[in-house]
């Protein structure tokens, strides 16, 4: 069964004329890692918010089509109920800290307290989430005393403690340094290995190519393509959608190094193909 089904989704923000999401349809299977790419204003963040139900429940506006998570239509459900199935991590780590808790440990407990979990279960989940994200040692620190990368991992911990089946990450590393970004990607990869469905909006194409099972290419509110990273990054019209393929892919495109018509998208695969190319020439 498909985990997420998006059918003919259309959305327009209040007081605007343009459709931010224009007849979008796709399906995501359980446990997949989906990368969403496209230039600014393509509708990526709005699509993520539509999957969590924030659009149209939080933002009003004209809404059409439907988004189903486990067969439940999110627009007709309560966000609190959907939050048990779909978690979302936003771009800015600072605004995801609730500000009402004095320690990292209590911060992770925030969502669990809201859903009325018992204390023992709460502690088990918090310990597990903090360990998984590698921030258990900061459990007694004030959340605002953490670095950007640590704070973003705290935001993810707060979401995964709620044990959703799907986690959406909207440019989670855009405000982080390379080390902080790497910490977040590793943490997300661990979640994927645990069978959690991941949807990630990201501009770091090397990372998207490396981790994604499928990539959704968006432009001007429409889905241009939804396929494997190799197929997406082998397209020759990416520039027109404001997307630049990973550096390895660009080099291989320059030398026309491809296999079955597809260019490599990861470093390992590119090295392998370059070696073969050299052997044959």
């Amino acid at each position, binding site marked *: 069964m498909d985990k997420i089904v998006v059918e003919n989704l259309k959305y327009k923000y209040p007081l605007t004329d343009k459709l931010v999401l224009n007849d979008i349809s796709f399906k995501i299977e359980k446990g997949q890692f989906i990368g969403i790419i496209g230039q600014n204003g393509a509708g990526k963040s709005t699509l993520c918010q539509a999957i969590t139900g924030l659009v149209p429940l939080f933002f009003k506006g004209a809404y059409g089509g439907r988004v189903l998570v486990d067969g439940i239509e999110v627009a007709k459900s309560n966000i609190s109920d959907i939050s048990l199935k779909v978690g979302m991590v936003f771009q800015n780590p600072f605004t995801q800290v609730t*500000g009402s808790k004095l320690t990292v440990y209590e911060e992770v407990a925030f*969502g669990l307290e809201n859903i009325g979990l018992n204390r023992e279960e709460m502690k088990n989940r918090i310990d597990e989430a903090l360990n998984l994200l590698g921030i258990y040692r900061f459990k007694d620190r004030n959340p605002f005393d953490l670095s950007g990368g640590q704070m973003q991992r705290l935001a993810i911990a707060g979401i995964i403690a709620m044990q959703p089946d799907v986690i959406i990450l909207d440019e989670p590393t855009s405000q982080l340094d390379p080390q902080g970004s790497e910490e977040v990607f590793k943490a997300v990869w661990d979640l994927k290995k645990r069978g959690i469905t991941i949807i990630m909006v990201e501009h770091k194409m090397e990372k998207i190519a490396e981790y994604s099972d499928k990539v959704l290419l968006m432009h001007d509110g429409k889905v241009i393509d939804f396929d494997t990273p190799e197929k997406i990054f082998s397209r020759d019209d990416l520039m027109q959608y404001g997307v630049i393929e990973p550096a390895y892919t660009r080099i291989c495109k320059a030398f026309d190094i491809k296999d079955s018509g597809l260019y490599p998208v990861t470093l390992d695969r590119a090295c392998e193909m370059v070696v073969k190319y050299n052997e044959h020439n």
Partner: protein
Amino acid sequence: MKSLSLYQERDSIIHEIEPINKLLYILTTILIMIIVPSIKCAVLCMIISLMLLLKANVIKKVLPIINFSFIILISIIIIQGLFNINNKTVLFNIGKIKFYKEGMMYSALIVIRVINILCAFALLVLTTKPSDLIEDLVRRGLSPKIGYVLSSVLQIIPQMTSTMGTIMDAQRSRGLETEGKLINRIKAFFPLIGPVVMNSLIATRERAMALEIRAFSSKNKKTFLNETKSTKLDSSLKYIFIAAVILSIIWRAAIWTK
């Protein structure tokens, strides 16, 4: 991490008392001073408050709070000592200025009451983490949304101040004069207010979404990570406060019937 809290971490029995009891103590103190309007009663209440502050090992931290109200208290003493309507008996002179006993006694009562109220509030704010106080109130029926607003402002306001500092630095680096004459400061205010307000609004909207994603509006009954630490002393204190108020009412009634 800056926080708008005056809480002092100490190992004392006062710190262990439930926040609600400290709130009840403030209420009881104020009620008793209203019901029993004698200077002896006010002094007794003040001594109890000071002893509790001493026991909590935070007495030194109360002085700045009292100092803060010092100018107002001094002005009350001067005005009452000079101009109280019941002034008859001269207590002392400073040159030609006469201070009267009746006014001075009345101002002493007001000063002791104010200091007592400040001490009672200090006992709460210096020995209770704001988050513990709010959590205790939420457990007792305060709306979690109101509780969240109260507890978050203590941390978010210092963060916003820090953001404002960054915006101010950014504007200053582009040549905006934010210091010096009053006119310069007023001129600098308008270019700053736009980015600060917009930044705050965007941050607030994002935080609101992040809260919703973490089931903030859930209709489930809220649970708490921290256990309640209610002791026998806590239960006894509630009865003691009630008894103290009832006794003062009886005393007052007895005075009336005489």
